[in-house]
């Protein structure tokens, strides 16, 4: 891929939440393309570009762990936040966990590492001086330096990811021998179609020797 990049990410824990098991979280077995896009966007993104994930390489075996956490049951409404902004005070803008406690268990992944292969495309918002080469250089520079807008995360914000740019084929890590088989991962979340009322799109995922091929994101098509 001419304007493609390869990024090695790893972390101690990850939770790529299944949409149906959102309350008592259960993670997918591997990283979802939308999570991969989120990591790339954390490093570099402008309205002029759109990241497209091509392949994901799974490096470590799939291991799960169960943790239980205290969370809250409600959200602050947008209306109350707006009121606070207008009033200039945040007095009533509070959630007390004692009144609204929810204990939620989560089944998260342990010791994950992936290599994300992706490229980006210019969108309609690209200006005259936006070119693929320019954005590719910016991304590479930032990834080498470890710069990011916000710390990239592995599914949910509390599981932060460390990242490193894979410069050339020599530096490409290889997957654990346990993963060198083919297996079917079922229907996985591809991404959310924000243009179409936040509809989730799914694709049939399968892993071959650690590689997961991600089909192109069909926006409005089913």
């Amino acid at each position: 891929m001419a304007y493609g990049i390869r990024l090695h990410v790893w972390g101690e824990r990850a939770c790529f939440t299944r949409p149906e098991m959102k309350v008592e979280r259960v993670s997918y077995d591997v990283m979802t393309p939308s999570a991969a896009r989120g990591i790339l966007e954390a490093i570099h993104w402008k309205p002029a570009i759109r990241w497209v994930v091509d392949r994901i390489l799974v490096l470590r075996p799939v291991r799960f762990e169960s943790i239980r956490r205290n969370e809250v049951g409600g959200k602050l409404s947008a209306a109350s936040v707006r009121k606070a902004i207008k009033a200039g005070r945040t007095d009533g803008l509070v959630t007390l966990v004692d009144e609204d406690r929810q204990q939620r268990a989560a089944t998260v992944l342990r010791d994950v590492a992936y290599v994300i292969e992706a490229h980006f495309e210019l969108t309609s918002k690209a200006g005259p001086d936006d070119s693929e080469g320019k954005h590719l250089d910016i991304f590479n520079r930032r990834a080498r330096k470890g710069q990011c807008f916000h710390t990239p995360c592995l599914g949910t914000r509390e599981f932060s990811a460390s990242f490193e740019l894979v410069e050339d084929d020599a530096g490409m890590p290889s997957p654990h021998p346990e993963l060198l088989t083919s297996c079917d991962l079922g229907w996985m979340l591809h991404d959310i179609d924000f243009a179409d009322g936040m509809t989730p799109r799914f694709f049939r995922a399968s892993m071959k020797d650690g590689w997961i091929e991600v089909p192109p994101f069909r926006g409005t098509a089913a």
Partner: protein
Amino acid sequence: MILSELYDYYQRLAANGQVPRFGFSTEKISYALLLNVDGSLIDEPLDVRDTSGKKPVPKMMTVPQPEKRTVDIKPNFLWDKTSYVLGASGKSSPRIADEHAAFKALHERWLADTEDPGLRAVLLFLRQWSPERFAEFSPAVRESLLDANVVFRLDGEHRYIHDSPAAEQLRSRMLAEGDATSGCCLVTGEIAPLARLHPAIKGVNGAQSSGASMVSFNLESFTSYGKNQGENAPVSELAAFAYTAVLNHLLRRGEHNRQRMQIGDATVVFWAHAATSDQAEAAELAFAGLLDPPADDASETAKLRSVLDAVAKGRPLRELGLNLEGDTRLFVLGLAPNASRLSIRFWYTGRLDQIARRLADHYLDLELQPPPWRSEPAVWRLLYATAAQGKAENIPPQLAGELTRAILTGSRYPRSLLANLIMRMRADHDVSGVRVALCKAVLTRDRRLGVSGVDLELPMSLDRTNTDPGYLLGRLFAELENVQRAALGKDVNATIRDRYYGAASATPASVFPMLLRNVQHHFGRLRKDKSGLANALETEIGQIVDGLHNAFPRSLRLEAQGHFAIGYYHQMQSRFKTKSSVDPVAIDETDE
């Protein structure tokens, strides 16, 4: 993958008719109203309950699936509880009139233009029924009829009205007409009408009696992108029905259901996918036997041993003649309740021979000589050892799921297991065989998996040449207690184990010098009565202290405290192996 595997299992079961088809479910029915063709009631409502036991048990019948109702009034089709059908209920509430009216309205709407005699009878019955007529029934019937579920039957027919072909046709029309939005289902990948609410799952221990949900978004903080209820996870109605129907089937209570077991707070269900249903059943029985060995059934124990032996020698399971195939896929799902939701404690799929091998490894890790049990302990028995006072509700949360996951996947045992056991032993001074075996299992497996920092080969039985300080200190402590017991007699109320076990295992340097000083008093007493025994004990203590070299360690790490417990147990068992009278370490053989 959980939902898609459940969906596949549903398809297999539905092909055999073992689960209700789409739109139907099995519910508890107590009474049937017998109707004439003109809708009048014949006689009293017929009691269809099973009266073979002490109490009459409602019969499980396949009826049109009930609506999920929490606060709304939603009548069911051709059956419901008496507050809906007859307008009478044990609790007086203003809703009853509304409920009955809703039931009548639903049937007016769907049965208005039917010509089937059974359905017309129901319609006519509802038109002429008034709730006051409930008092006409005999008192005995009235008492048990209130708030029970009732169905209808036409006089002269054997089957119930909801089973008739006309009713089924009407039901499929009802199901087809829905106002659900269509979308891509995440279980099947097809475009289908999506479920807004998923049916309830009943049968999980500790959950709400009205049923809990695995997929639910009932609070604001559970929703995303401003979506409501089922829109957060698009699952088609058929898939939602399928996975809940098959889960309810797996969770059914009864002696004959060997597809569920309770491990701590988690209800575990499992099923197999094999070439024939016989093989699947055999595989499920084998798995149940491996994970929960029956303590009293000798033939079952023998079968289990043969499976474990075959796996240990690497022979295929096919040769055992138990109709087992090594490549049968087994699916294990652990569910735990959390108010109105179900939490997934673990999900595991694998081949039968793989699982058998992992369980064999688990029992090997647990092995202790002399064995503190007659037959291999089930997982739930191991968990009781970690609970205060041996009560199930005191088992630390999450531990059940993590331990079962560790056993099935062959990964390290949960770290909290060792910490909990050490804490329990210090708190109630009970260094029981099960606890020691679990400590040994955790440490042995860590060493086998190559965890850094763990390199001590743990002996199964007493090893006099082992020089690990924790192990030696445990042995020393046991010998000191033996001296005390020998000197003071067998009915000592509290030995040094009750007073000093915790301190001795955690901070040996502060306790052992004092214990060694005091043991001389006991030796003095002992030499007067049993000098032979005194000599034997003295040489043993001398040998142990020799192995300790310079000084007592100031404190012991968690793993070393585990070694301490194992050394204590080994030494105690070797001393009292031949004597059957006094047994300070209780052998855990009874069922909890």
